[in-house]
């Protein structure tokens, strides 16, 4: 499936969570093998509770696998946590903006971690807010912004660090369809324009078809049920066939 050297590589990765004494551990991910090529926009699709977010957190280095290896750009994102500063950016399911910071200060957050000088930090943050249609709202606090605007700020925050790898955990699931569709299109354009590699976790088949140039459907506990490449040339009829294929896999 991967021709180029993968930038993200999961080999026989399992993750289980221990429960109370004597109860068996909950297996969230089971011996998963997954590779993502540089520049690829991978949609990770599965039902709620199938372990998508656990995979996401392991790639982000926020969770350690129980067994197997996760490497990102040749290194372990959990044990080499600090070495990924500025290399991985995340857009979460909810916007997760710091309520005590204005929109522009929220976008500056990742740049502060990279010790970018204040002037340059602000300039970059303003640039990304403007690109995401938030000119005039730079000094608003999160409570004064709508859900869609807050999610735009969180996307701006992720892009501002210019990280090579973007991880997105159902970032548009809480938005209305029209806003989500507009943001999805904007997101894909920005990813492609800036040559990023992105892993996009979703439970929506439509969203996966809209966004991904590869769709990996997960079954529970998280392992690959089907791996489907898409191209810009994929016809609407072909997409419809893929949709039915995914539906039948998820229904099984």
């Amino acid at each position, binding site marked *: 499936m991967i021709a180029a050297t993968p930038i993200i590589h999961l080999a026989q990765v399992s993750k289980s969570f221990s429960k109370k004494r004597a109860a068996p551990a909950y297996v969230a991910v089971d011996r998963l093998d997954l590779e993502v090529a540089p520049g690829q926009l991978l949609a990770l699709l599965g039902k709620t509770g199938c372990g998508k977010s656990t995979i996401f957190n392991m790639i*982000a280095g*926020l969770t350690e696998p129980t067994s197997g290896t996760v490497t990102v750009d040749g290194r372990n994102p959990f044990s080499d*946590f*600090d070495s*990924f*500063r*500025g290399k*991985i*950016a*995340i857009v*979460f399911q*909810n916007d*997760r903006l*710091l*309520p*005590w*910071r204005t929109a522009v200060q929220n976008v500056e*957050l*990742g740049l*502060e*971690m990279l010790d970018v000088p204040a002037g340059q930090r602000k300039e970059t943050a303003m640039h990304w807010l403007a690109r995401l249609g938030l000119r005039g709202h730079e000094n608003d*606090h999160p*409570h*004064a912004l709508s859900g869609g605007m807050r999610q735009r700020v969180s996307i701006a925050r992720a892009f501002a*660090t210019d990280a090579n790898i973007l991880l997105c955990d159902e970032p548009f699931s809480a938005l209305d369809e029209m806003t989500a569709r507009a943001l999805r299109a904007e997101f894909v354009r920005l990813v492609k324009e800036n040559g990023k590699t992105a892993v996009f976790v979703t439970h929506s088949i439509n969203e996966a078809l809209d966004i991904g140039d590869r769709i990996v459907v997960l079954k529970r506990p998280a392992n690959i049920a089907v791996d489907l490449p898409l191209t810009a040339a994929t016809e609407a009829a072909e997409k419809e066939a893929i949709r039915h294929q995914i539906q039948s896999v998820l229904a099984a």
Partner: protein
Amino acid sequence: MTVPQAESSLTAGWSAGLGRRGLFYVLPFAVVAGLWQFASLFFPPFLFPSLVDVFKRCFEIFVSWSQFSDVLATVGRILAGLAGAFIVGATLAVMMARSRAVNDFLSPILTLFQGIPALSWVVFAIIWFHGIEPRIFFIMVMTTLPAFTFQVLSALQAMSRDLMEMVMSFRPTRAKLFRTMIIPAILPDILTAWKVNLGNASRVVVVAELVGATGGVGYELLQQQQVFDMAGALAWTLQLVFFVLIAQAVLTLIENIAFRYRAVSERSL
């Protein structure tokens, strides 16, 4: 209605609301003061002195450096004790939040400390320490330390896991994590802890000074008690009350400035 008319009626309504709130705030004090003044007409001054005499004594304390320095000494002791307790308490709280073993070890000890009366700490301090200031500092720290520790610990534990995870995703250094996330997140609870402990500290400092000091509001209260001077006792007490009120107002001002970002609902509790 024209725009200027509407504006003037709004201003009038706002002023009336402010006046009503002010009246409700002052009314209880006015009633207590009136009852006291009424009692002063029928009882001797060493039981219920006239409020005029009390305020005269207050003014004398305020304008006389030798007396006002006693007030400042007490204020200094309160602030030093609270600062010491806060620094030690916050450090302990961070250690407890980071390690379950430390939490399990320190929690029972701090709970035990909470059960020890302030007067017992006064006795221990007199036995253990020679100097007046170390004694009072020790008493102030020991009586407010558990509350500070538990309050900061509770704030650390209540921090949003989502926000913490988001900040961690940018791989901050420990110093940056504290500056950008932890301190702003727990600041409201820290200010509340200071407000609560300020009242406790002002009560404890008087006990500490009553027993072991040669200056300060507590010491002066002891002098008034020995000569049955109720007006003096009230005047010295009021100095401490004024300080607590001013300090609370300063903390509230800091809150109002620091937490302007909070959304305000048009409906409240």
